[in-house]
């Protein structure tokens, strides 16, 4: 049945793919629904990891490793610090309230159905392409066609660095 949907069963990789897909979606649900914000944050770890696995299935090796390095090693750690610095360790039940879940679920469900409709019923112009390493090509694109956005993004990162350091700095107490 699943084979009809375009998954090559019989290939062990198909099971790994399904596991990654299930991990991504399931942990995303936990992020959205968990009552404990620390669990949400760690479910986000699984989501990022699952998405990195999906990139690997899309032959995007560089993006997969960058996803792990930046999201898991950087952004997730930032979020965890954010959680831990804005809560007290003695709060056993960390409050993470959900307001208006029904309206939210209705909107999210509508968006999902619309996107799913589009992705299934559009005739995509799919081409056969053999997998090839992407790192070199991405490097060439960064210093070739996308040089200006690349430089702009480095300026953005510098700005974010300075801005974040300025915002998070403790105000000097006046004598």
């Amino acid at each position: 049945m699943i084979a009809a949907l375009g998954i090559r069963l019989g290939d062990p990789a198909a099971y790994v793919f399904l596991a990654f897909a299930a991990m991504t979606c399931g942990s995303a649900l936990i992020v959205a629904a968990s009552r404990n914000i620390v669990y949400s944050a760690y479910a986000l770890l699984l989501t990022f990891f699952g998405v990195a696995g999906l990139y690997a299935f899309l032959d995007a090796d560089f993006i997969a490793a960058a996803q792990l390095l930046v999201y898991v090693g950087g952004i997730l750690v930032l979020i965890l610090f954010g959680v831990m610095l804005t809560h007290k360790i003695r709060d056993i039940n960390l409050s993470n309230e959900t307001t208006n879940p029904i309206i939210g679920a209705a909107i999210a469900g509508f968006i999902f159905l619309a996107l799913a409709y589009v992705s299934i019923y559009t005739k995509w112009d799919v081409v056969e392409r053999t997998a090839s390493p992407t790192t070199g090509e991405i490097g060439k694109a960064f210093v070739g066609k996308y040089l200006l956005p690349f430089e702009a993004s480095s300026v953005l990162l510098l700005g974010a660095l300075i801005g974040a350091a300025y915002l998070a700095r403790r105000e000097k107490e006046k004598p």
Partner: protein
Amino acid sequence: MHPLLTFAHDVMPFTKGWPDWILYGLLVFIVAFGILNTLVAPLTGISTYIERRLAGRAQYRWGPNRVGFRSMLSALPITRGLAKLADVQPIKFIGSKIPGGLLQFAADGLKLFTKEDIIPSQADQLLFRASPYVIMAGSFAAFAVLPVSFHFRAVNLNIGIFYILGISSIVVPGILMAGWGSANKWALLGGMRAAAQIVSYEIPVAIALMTAVMLAGTMNMADIVDAQRSGYGIQKAGLLGWYAFRYCGLMLVPFVVYFIGGCAEVNRTPFDLVEGESELVAGYHTEYSGFRWSFFFMAEYSNMFAVGAIATTMFLGGPLPPYPVQFTEALFGPMGNLGMILRFGEGFFWFFAKSYFFVLVMIHMRWTLPRYRVDQLMNVCWKVLIPIALVWFVLMCGVRMVRMEMALGPEKDAVTEGHK
């Protein structure tokens, strides 16, 4: 039918009726179990043995010297009988040439395995239980791409070193998990310190590694090793081809930056503020006991080995010997399968010799140097290592560009013509 499945059916006939996916899961489990027990546990065990013996020397005591092959041999009935005939103590009969205590790590492992697994009642059960596995997974996953010998590694990944940088960053959330889950403020402080330290030191480490990647022109670890076969225009360069000694010693600087950063990333003295026992009891694993604690311990030693192995691969030629490897290739090449095995053993020997050299240096550092303060630690990272690494990266870019221009020189026009 996939060959893996047929193989599993042949070896384990009782699995014939099982669904495919359960069988695949079982295979993954068996392989992971095998790797953990045959490869990783002995690696960390040997490291702990070296550490404890050296610590004993540094503190003028013996260290582990009982549980080992010597006592095992002397306990054998035949040895006892022979010793009785010769009228000496069995342990004297075996002699003191075999170092004692070699199996201490196995005994310790058994002991930890049988200890009570204590979980604090206020702890977050799930996070507390999961954290050792996350940390183990992060530190062992890096082993997959290490080129242990010539063209011998688990996976030939074309983003090898980048994969290591990415996958080992899973350790940081794992440490925070342990710190938060313990519901203990020392554990939390230790975890936060560890996370801040590892995240900060990842930057100079990554830049220093990227310098070598830039010179090799590839992130594949096997190709980086191959790039170190020759150097200074000599085909058979041997030791001179290693990146640490290339470019008139310019690359020594990123090498040293990497090693300092790597030491800081494994959280050992002089960078062990994370578990500074005078301040934080034992850092993020304060509340752990028994086998869960031994997971942290194993992760620490395997991280040490990984840092040494990465330094070896990126800067010291990996499995390449210090003499020109072409000699042994010419020697072993015509010998067929035996030559293959010899060459494999040669690469294996040099890789582990170099990696364990770094482990030894780290152990010596631990028993020699005092601990840094937090502000000193961050100053070293942000004001010393990162600027040096960045400047050296740009410098080596310049060196490589000049060399490429020189190499291309006469043919450059032809190359550009070809593109048009």
